């Protein structure tokens, strides 16, 4: 038989563009790998029962609750966390949106909201309020009542559309 079950497994995961190798317990959750093995504590643990979405990261581009994925399941995958959003000391447009529109109060849910919003806007660059509300329905916020989070995502999406338009123009003129 080709595969034998193992309690410890060597994995290679690319996180925010950087490759990491580790030998992990089969039972190690992806969120603990990120927070404890890699010290990337931007990804939060909220409910720990697959409800709240505070631990949301992108796994090969798909938003997932990292408390409900094993680290070994991410072997060979690209993982993006909130730490990877800022580029060249420039906030990501969605981060800028949360800043400008006061899209957070305590901020605990924000990393998960940002990662869910990143995947949402990638699929749908001009989401309606309804589409945003539906898209973030797996991410719980206990402070804001969601009004400013929706505005923040609309702000970020609009800025991303502007940037895309500018880079298309530049490409056309080049």
């Amino acid at each position, binding site marked *: 038989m080709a595969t034998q079950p193992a309690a410890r497994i060597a994995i290679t995961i690319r996180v925010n563009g950087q490759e990491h190798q580790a030998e992990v317990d089969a039972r190690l959750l992806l969120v603990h790998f990120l927070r404890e093995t890699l010290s990337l504590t931007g990804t939060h643990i909220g409910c720990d029962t697959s409800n709240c979405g505070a631990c949301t990261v992108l796994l090969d581009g798909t938003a997932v609750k990292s408390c*409900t994925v094993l680290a070994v399941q991410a072997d060979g995958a690209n993982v993006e966390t909130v730490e990877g959003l800022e580029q060249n000391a420039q906030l990501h447009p969605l981060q800028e949106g949360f800043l400008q529109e006061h899209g957070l109060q305590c901020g605990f849910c924000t990393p998960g909201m940002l990662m869910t919003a990143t995947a949402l806007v990638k699929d749908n660059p001009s989401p309606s309020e309804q589409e945003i509300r539906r898209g973030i329905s797996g991410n719980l916020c206990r402070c804001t009542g969601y009004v400013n989070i929706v505005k923040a995502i609309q702000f970020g999406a609009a800025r991303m559309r502007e940037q895309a338009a500018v880079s298309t123009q530049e490409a056309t003129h080049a």
Partner: protein
Amino acid sequence: MIPASFRYAAPQTVAEAVDLLSNHADAKVLAGGHSLLPLMKLRLANPRVLVDINRIPGLDYIREDQQAAELRVGALARHIDFERSDLIRTRYPLLWDTACGIGDPLVRNRGTMAGSVAHADPASDWPAALLAAEGEVVATGPQGARVLPIDGLYIAILTTSLKPDELLTEVRVPIPGARTGSAYEKLERKVGDYAVIGVGVQVTFNAAGIIATAGIGLCNAGSTSIKARTAEAFLVGKPAAPDNVNEAARLAMEDSDPVEDDRGPVDYKRAMVRELTRRALSRAFDRARGGN
């Protein structure tokens, strides 16, 4: 929370997965993991071996087999794949309704139909929908594959007639014929919670406008997913008149057996079976007439 220790294997083929299940007692299959991993974290499930089928290529399909007149769904087709499928949205409104209401968007990115069917939680949406649609499953074991109807699969809560060394490799749903309508109605307290009650319905009319077949499945209305046989039998041979809808809804309520919990008392849940059956039948009738 961290699950208890287990050993993990990620087979590359179905045969290898079945081998692993045969050779290791107390092994569990890991697909989407959004039922199993939470149970393991709460130590309500403690498998010694996890067989992760996510690395087996070619199991994520949703396609029609015209010769068999069936929709065929691979073990790794996720809820989101149904939500995004034009085929499902246009031809299988029951399945589309169901997929769009499961858990929340992040759960739907991972969870699978086949995993939900095999998990046998009476609070899962897919089994109720598939009981209405007369679905079947393909169980692949060391002796090969066998096909069994989902009606009869459920023995008790979280318990199916699948053998420990069988992998549920495919779900099959008959392609709906002409004059068929279907719908799934779900009442939930909030996004991500289990249904208070869910009702799946599929009806086919004959050319004279009489109900030729009726399927009704109930979610979270008993200790297993329930096929509301009395209500189904009542509808066959009758026109889609309001009195018949009301009587079928009442019979579906009688077919249900909910328990009191923090989602409500028994009489409330029974009343919701009745109301959701009424709504699902009305929508299914509209859709059978070409509405959406």
